[in-house]
C-alpha cells in the first residue's frame, strides 16, 4: 500500500482549497463583469432622464449705491471654469455696476451715455454727473448687450465686453463698455418700446414704437470713403398701419428682416422688411378670447416666435406650409416650400401655463430654453421642444442667462442670486440634457422647419440647429429590417430543418448539417459587401425576374407535382426519389427562375416601358432605392438561416424516435407524421429557434450599415431602406463627443438593443430548458 506523508496530504489539500477559491472567484468575477456591462451602459444613459434643478451658486446684496427699484437690467459673466462670477447691474443713470458674486464687492462702475455723434468711438469712462438724460428702460439684445431707451428720445446699444479668458485669475478683471450703435432722437418723440441690434461691425437695425403705435425701423450702416472718413447711411421705414388694437409688444429678428408685434386684444402681426420698405405683412387673430399679448421673444435662430399672454400662457409660433398647400402633389410641394410666401404663421405648441400674466420672456443664447417671468414674480425655466420645466423661482425680478446658457441670475428684493441649472442625481450634480424628454424620444415633435409634428432623427446641421432625437424611426427601421429578413429566413430555415431532420438519409444529413453550420461562420461584413455591391445591381436589373419568380416557381412546382402523381405509381421512381427530393427541387427552383427571367424582359418592355423602377415611381409613386429591404432580406436572412436551422433541426430530431415510429406504424405518411406528431412536440424548440434568430437579426450591424442607405424613413415599402439602431450607433459614435447628448442617445440605442435581445433570448432559453426537462424523461 502506498502511504503519503502528512506533508504531502496537507499540500494537496491546500492546493485543493486554493483552487476552489480561485475558480469560484474567477467564475464570480466573470459573471459580475458581465452584469457590469449592462449597468455601465445604463449608467451612461441615465443623465438623459435625470430631473433638473437650480443650484444656488451665490447670493450677495445689491451694492448700497444702487436701489432695487432703480435696477433696469442685470447680467452675469461666468468664467469657463467657474472660478470667476461677476454680475453687472444697470441703473437708470446708465451706469453698469460690476459686482463680484463671491465677495459681494463692487469691482468697477462704468457709465454709458447716448452719443450724439454718428459713430460710437472710444469707451465712455465714468464721467461727471450732470444733466445727462436718464435711461428709461433697457432691453436685452444679446447676453451682454442692452438696448437703452433714453429720456431724450435716443436709443443706444451698450455692450459689456467681458474680460478675455487669458487674463490671470489673480488679477482683477477689467470690464469695458462699448457703445455699439446709436439711434438719434426721432421726430415722433420718446419711443415707448425699442429694440436695437448690431447686424455687423458698423451696421445696426432698430425698431422703435412711438405714440399712436407708429413703428419706425432704422437701418444704419457706416461706410468708409477713400480719405478714411466715415459716413453713416440710415434708411428709415415708418409703419403707421391701422392696427387691430393697441400694441403691447414687439420682436425683431437679429438680421432686421422680420418684425413681429402683439396687441392688447390678442392679435399677432408681422411685417417682412426690405432695405427701405415693407415687403409683406399680415395680421393674425391669434387668441380667440382676445386676451392681450404681453410679451414677445424670438428663440435662438430667430425662427420660433414665443408669445406670452395675459392669461399666463406661453405659446410657440413659426411659419409652416398650410395644410391646403401640402395636399398638392409632391412636385408642386417642392416648389412651394422654397417660397416662404405660401407659409403661414401657425401655433406650434403651448407650454405649461403660469398663474399670472407673462411679464418677460428671455431666450437662451445656447439652446431651446426660455426664462419666463410673470406678474406675480414667479419665474420658470422651460424647454420648448421637450416641454420640460427645468426650474422654478419665486419672487424674482430681472432674470438673465449667462452667455453659455447654463447659469441664471436674478434679483430677489435687495439680493442678487445666481443659479446653475444642472441635472440632479440624488442630490449630486450631473450633466443635464434639456432637449431630451420621453416626449421627444417617443412622440412626434413639431421641430422648426417641419410642416407637422414628426418622428424625426437628425443630428447634424448648422450652428443653431436643433438635433431631432426621436427613437421611433430607428426602432421602426430595426423591426422593418428584421421583419423582411425573417420573412425570407424563417420559412426557408424551418422547411430545410424539417427536411433534414425527417425526410433525408443520414448520409446526406452528415454533410448538409456541417455545411449550413459553416455558413454561420461567414463574417457579416462579407455578406454586407456582397449584398451591397454584387447583389444590389443584380436585383435592380432583375427586379421583374424576382417578382415573377414568386409566381413561376410555385407554378413549376405544381406542374411537376401533377406529373409526379402519375410517375410515383411506379415504385422504382418513388424509391429513387425518396430522401433525395431536395436535389430535384433545386432543379425545379432553377427552372422556375429561368422561366421567370425568360418572361421578364418582354414583360418589362411591354408593360413597364422598359424600366420597371421608373414606371413604379411614375405610376405607383413608389421610389426604388438602390439600397433597400429586399437586399436586407437576403443579407440578414442569410446570417440567421444557419442559426434557426441548427436550433430547429436539433429540436425536431430530439423528438423521441418511438413517437415517429408509432405514427408511421399506424399508417401515417411522412408528412402527416411530421405535421401532427413531431411538430406539436417540437414547437417550443422551433419557437425558441425563431426567437434567437430574431434576436440575431435585430443586432446585425454591418449588413444594415452597408446595404440600407441609413435613411431614417418610416414606410414599410420593401423598395426603401431604413435606419436601424445598430447601424446608427456604428455610424454616429465617431462624431459624438463623450458625455454629450448624442453620445448618451447612442448608448440609449444600445440599451434598447440589449433589452430587446435579452428578452428574446431569455424567452428562448426558458422554453428550451423546459423542453429539455420534458424530453429528459424519455
Amino acid at each position, binding site marked *: 500500500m502506498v502511504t503519503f506523508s502528512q506533508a504531502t496530504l496537507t499540500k494537496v489539500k491546500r492546493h485543493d482549497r486554493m483552487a476552489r477559491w480561485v475558480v469560484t472567484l474567477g467564475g464570480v468575477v466573470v459573471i459580475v463583469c*458581465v452584469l457590469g456591462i449592462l449597468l455601465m451602459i445604463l449608467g451612461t444613459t441615465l443623465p438623459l432622464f435625470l430631473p433638473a434643478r437650480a443650484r444656488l451658486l451665490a447670493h450677495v446684496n445689491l451694492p448700497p449705491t444702487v436701489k432695487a427699484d432703480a435696477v433696469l437690467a442685470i447680467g452675469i459673466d461666468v468664467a469657463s471654469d467657474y472660478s470667476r462670477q461677476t454680475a453687472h447691474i444697470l441703473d437708470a443713470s446708465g451706469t453698469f455696476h460690476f459686482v463680484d458674486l463671491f465677495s459681494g464687492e463692487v469691482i468697477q462702475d462704468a457709465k454709458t451715455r447716448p452719443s450724439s455723434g454718428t459713430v460710437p468711438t472710444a469707451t465712455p469712462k465714468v464721467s461727471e454727473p450732470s444733466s445727462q438724460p436718464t435711461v428709461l428702460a433697457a432691453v436685452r439684445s444679446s447676453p451682454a448687450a442692452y438696448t437703452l431707451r433714453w429720456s431724450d428720445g435716443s436709443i443706444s446699444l451698450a455692450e459689456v465686453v467681458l474680460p478675455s479668458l487669458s487674463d490671470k485669475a489673480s488679477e482683477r478683471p477689467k470690464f469695458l463698455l462699448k457703445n455699439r450703435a446709436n439711434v438719434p432722437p426721432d421726430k415722433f418723440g420718446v419711443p415707448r418700446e425699442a429694440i436695437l441690434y448690431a447686424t455687423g461691425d458698423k451696421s445696426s437695425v432698430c425698431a422703435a414704437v412711438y405714440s399712436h403705435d407708429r413703428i419706425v425701423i432704422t437701418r444704419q450702416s457706416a461706410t468708409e470713403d477713400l480719405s478714411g472718413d466715415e459716413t453713416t447711411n440710415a434708411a428709415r421705414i415708418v409703419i403707421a398701419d391701422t392696427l387691430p388694437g393697441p400694441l403691447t409688444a414687439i420682436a425683431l429678428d437679429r438680421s432686421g428682416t422680420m418684425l413681429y408685434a402683439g396687441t392688447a386684444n390678442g392679435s399677432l402681426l408681422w411685417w417682412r422688411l426690405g432695405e427701405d420698405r415693407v415687403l409683406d405683412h399680415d395680421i393674425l387673430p391669434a387668441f380667440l378670447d382676445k386676451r392681450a399679448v404681453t410679451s414677445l421673444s424670438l428663440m435662438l435662430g430667430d425662427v420660433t416666435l414665443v408669445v406670452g399672454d395675459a392669461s399666463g400662457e406661453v405659446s410657440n409660433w413659426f411659419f409652416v406650409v398650410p395644410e391646403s398647400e401640402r395636399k398638392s402633389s409632391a412636385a408642386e410641394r417642392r416648389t412651394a416650400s422654397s417660397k416662404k410666401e405660401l407659409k403661414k404663421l401657425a401655433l406650434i405648441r403651448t407650454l405649461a401655463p403660469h398663474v399670472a400674466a407673462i411679464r418677460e420672456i428671455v431666450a437662451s443664447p445656447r439652446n431651446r430654453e426660455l426664462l419666463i417671468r410673470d406678474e406675480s414674480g414667479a419665474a420658470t425655466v422651460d424647454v420648448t421642444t421637450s416641454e420640460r420645466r427645468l426650474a422654478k423661482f419665486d419672487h424674482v425680478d430681472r432674470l438673465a442667462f449667462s452667455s453659455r446658457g447654463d447659469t441664471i441670475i436674478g434679483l430677489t428684493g435687495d439680493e442678487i442670486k445666481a443659479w446653475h441649472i444642472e441635472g440632479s442625481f440624488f442630490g449630486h450634480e450631473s450633466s443635464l440634457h434639456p432637449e431630451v424628454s420621453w416626449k421627444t424620444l417617443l412622440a412626434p415633435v413639431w421641430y422648426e422647419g417641419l410642416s407637422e409634428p414628426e418622428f424625426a432623427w437628425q443630428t447634424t446641421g448648422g450652428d443653431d440647429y436643433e438635433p431631432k432625437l426621436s427613437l421611433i424611426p430607428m426602432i421602426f427601421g430595426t423591426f422593418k429590417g428584421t421583419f423582411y429578413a425573417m420573412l425570407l429566413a424563417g420559412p426557408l430555415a424551418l*422547411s*430545410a430543418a424539417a427536411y433534414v431532420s425527417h425526410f433525408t438519409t443520414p448520409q446526406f444529413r452528415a454533410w448538409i448539417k456541417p455545411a449550413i453550420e459553416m455558413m454561420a*461562420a461567414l463574417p457579416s461584413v462579407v455578406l454586407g459587401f456582397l449584398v451591397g455591391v454584387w447583389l444590389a445591381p443584380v436585383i435592380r436589373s432583375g427586379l421583374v425576374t424576382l417578382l415573377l419568380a414568386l409566381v413561376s416557381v410555385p407554378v413549376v412546382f405544381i406542374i411537376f407535382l401533377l406529373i409526379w402523381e402519375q410517375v410515383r405509381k411506379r415504385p422504382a421512381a418513388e424509391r429513387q426519389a425518396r430522401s433525395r427530393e431536395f436535389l*430535384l427541387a433545386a432543379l425545379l427552383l432553377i427552372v422556375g427562375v429561368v422561366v421567370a427571367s425568360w418572361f421578364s424582359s418582354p414583360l418589362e418592355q411591354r408593360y413597364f416601358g422598359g424600366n420597371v423602377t421608373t414606371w413604379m415611381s411614375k405610376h405607383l409613386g413608389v421610389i426604388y432605392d438602390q439600397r433597400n429591404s429586399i437586399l436586407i432580406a437576403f443579407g440578414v436572412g442569410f446570417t440567421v438561416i444557419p442559426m434557426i436551422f441548427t436550433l430547429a433541426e436539433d429540436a425536431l430530431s430530439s423528438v423521441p424516435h418511438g413517437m415517429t415510429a408509432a405514427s408511421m406504424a399506424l399508417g401515417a405518411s411522412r408528412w402527416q407524421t411530421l405535421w401532427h406528431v413531431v411538430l406539436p412536440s417540437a414547437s417550443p424548440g422551433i419557437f425558441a429557434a425563431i426567437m434567437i434568430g430574431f*434576436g440575431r437579426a435585430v443586432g446585425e450591424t454591418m449588413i444594415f450599415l452597408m446595404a440600407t442607405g441609413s435613411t431614417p424613413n418610416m414606410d414599410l415599402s420593401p423598395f426603401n431602406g431604413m435606419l436601424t439602431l*445598430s447601424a446608427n450607433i456604428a455610424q454616429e459614435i465617431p462624431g459624438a463627443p463623450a458625455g454629450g447628448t448624442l453620445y448618451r442617445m447612442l448608448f440609449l440605442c444600445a440599451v434598447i438593443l440589449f433589452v430587446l435581445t435579452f428578452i428574446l433570448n431569455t424567452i428562448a432559453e426558458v422554453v428550451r430548458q423546459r423542453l429539455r426537462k420534458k424530453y429528459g424523461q424519455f
Partner: protein
Amino acid sequence: MVWVAGGGLAAVLLGALILIVVILSNGLVVFWPAPIEQVRLDDGTQILGRRINSENSIGRGLQVRFKTANREFDSQRQDFHWVADDKIASTDLPAECVVLERLANGDFYGFVKEIKSPGLDVKQSGDPFHQLQDALRSMDLHKTEELDPLLRRIEGKTDELNAVKLSRLKGEYRQKQLRNSASHDEKAATALEGNIAELKAVAGELQKDSERLVNQRSKVEESLRQNLAIVLDAQGASRSIALMDVIRVYRPNSMNILAKASHYAAKVWELLTTPPREANTEGGVLPAIFGTVALVLLMAVLSFPLGVLAGVYLGEYARDGFLVRLVRIGVNNLAGIPSIVYGIFGVGFFINSLGHAIDEQFYAYRLAEGRVFHGGGVLWAALTLGILTVPVVIVATEEAIRVIPRGVRESSYALGSTKFQTLIRVLLPLASPGIMTGFILAMARAAGEVAPLMLTGVVSTAGTVPLDGRFPYLHLERQFLHLGFQIYTVAFQTPNSEAARPMVYVITLLLVLIVLLLSGMAILLRNRMRKQLQIKTI
C-alpha cells in the same frame, strides 16, 4: 409537402452555393493576367483595355465596359470606359502590348518604345521590352543599394528624435510640477533646466542630421528619376514614365500558361507580404493580416483563461440552484447580445473611462502631443472582443465538462484524489477537445467581427502598426488594420471604388478562407470528440 420542404433546403443550399461561387469567381481571377484587347472603333479611335463586362441597356444596345487604365492621361481621369458594341470595328490582341504596374495612378497599358537609362548599366540595343525588364532589374538593385539604407537611416533618426522629444516633454512636465507643488522646490526645478537644454541640443543635432539625410535622399531619387521608359498609349501618343515608379512589367498577350501562373503566384506573394498602396486599392494586405492575427491572439490571451475558469466554475463547482440557473441563462444570453452593444461598451468603459484614467495617471506629460490610451487601440479592441467571445468559451467549457460521464469522476474520487486533482488530471484532459472547439469558434467569430472594432480603434490606413522594432516593441495603444474593416472601407469609402473592387474581392476571399478554415476545424474537432465520448461511455 415533402417537396416544398425539400425546396426550402434546396433554396438555402443554392444560396450558399451562389455565395461561394461569387466570392471564388471574383476573387480568384483578379491576379490572373487577362488579355488586353486593342479595339478600333468606327470613328477611328483606338482603345487598349481589358474587357470587364457588358450590359444590355434599353435604347442603346449592348454596351461593353473596358478597363483602359492610364488614369492620369485620361481626359476624365477614369479607369473604365463604356463602348457601344455595334461601334466596334475590329479587335485584336497585340502580342507586344505591355502592362506597367506603377506605384501611383494604377496600371499603364501601352507599348514600349524605348528606354532612356543614363544612370543604369543596360544595353541600349535589342528588344525594347527586354531592355525595359533589364532596366527595371538594375533599377531595383540601385534602389536596394542606394535608397533603402538611406530610408532606414532617416527612419532611425526620426525614432531617436521622437524619443528625445518625449524625454524633453517629461522633463518639462516634471519641472512644472515641482514649481507648482506646495513645497515649491525651485532648486530641483532649476537642476532639471540643464537636462532639458541638453535634450534640446540633441534634438537640434538630430534634426540637422535628418534634414541632411532627406536632402541626400532627394538627390539620389532625382538621379534615379532620370531613367525613363518612353511608352506609347492606345492613340499612339508617346508618354514617359519614370522607371522608379514601375513595380512590374509584363506582356499579358504573349504569356504562356506557365508564365501566367508564375505571375499569379508573384501577385499572391505580394498580397500576403507587402503593405497596401494607393489608398488600399493595390498592393498587399500584410498590415491588415497582421492586425487581424494580433487582435485575435491578444483577445485569446485575455479572454480564454477567464472563460475556462468561469466555465469550470459553472460546470464543476457551482451548486445547482436558482442562482446558478439564472447565471446560466445570463451567460447563454450574453452570447446573443449584438456585437455593436459590446462595441459601445468598449467605447464607454475601456476608452473613455479606463483609457482616460491611464492617460491622466501616466501620460499627463505628453497629452498636449495627443492622447495615448484615451482613444481607440488594439488593446481596447482585443478586450472588447474578449468579453464578446467569453460566453462562447464559457458555454463550450461547461458543456464539455458536463458531458463527461459521472463514473469517470467517481472513480477518480474513489482513488482518493481531491476535486482539484480530478479536475486537472482527469476532467480537463477529457474536456480539452470540447474546450478547444470553443476556442476556435471564438477565434473565428473574433476574426470576422467588424462592428465593435469600428468603435474601438480599427483604421483603414495607419502610419504605424502595433508592432515594430522600437521599445517596447508591442504598442498596445496603437490603432490597427483589420481584414474585415478593410472590406468595408475599401468597398464603400474609397473615391475610386470601381477600380478598388477586385482588391475587395481578394480580401473577402482571404477572410472567408481564414474564417471557414477555423470553423471547419472546430466542427471536425467536435465531431471527433463526440465519437470518442460515445466510445468511452460504451
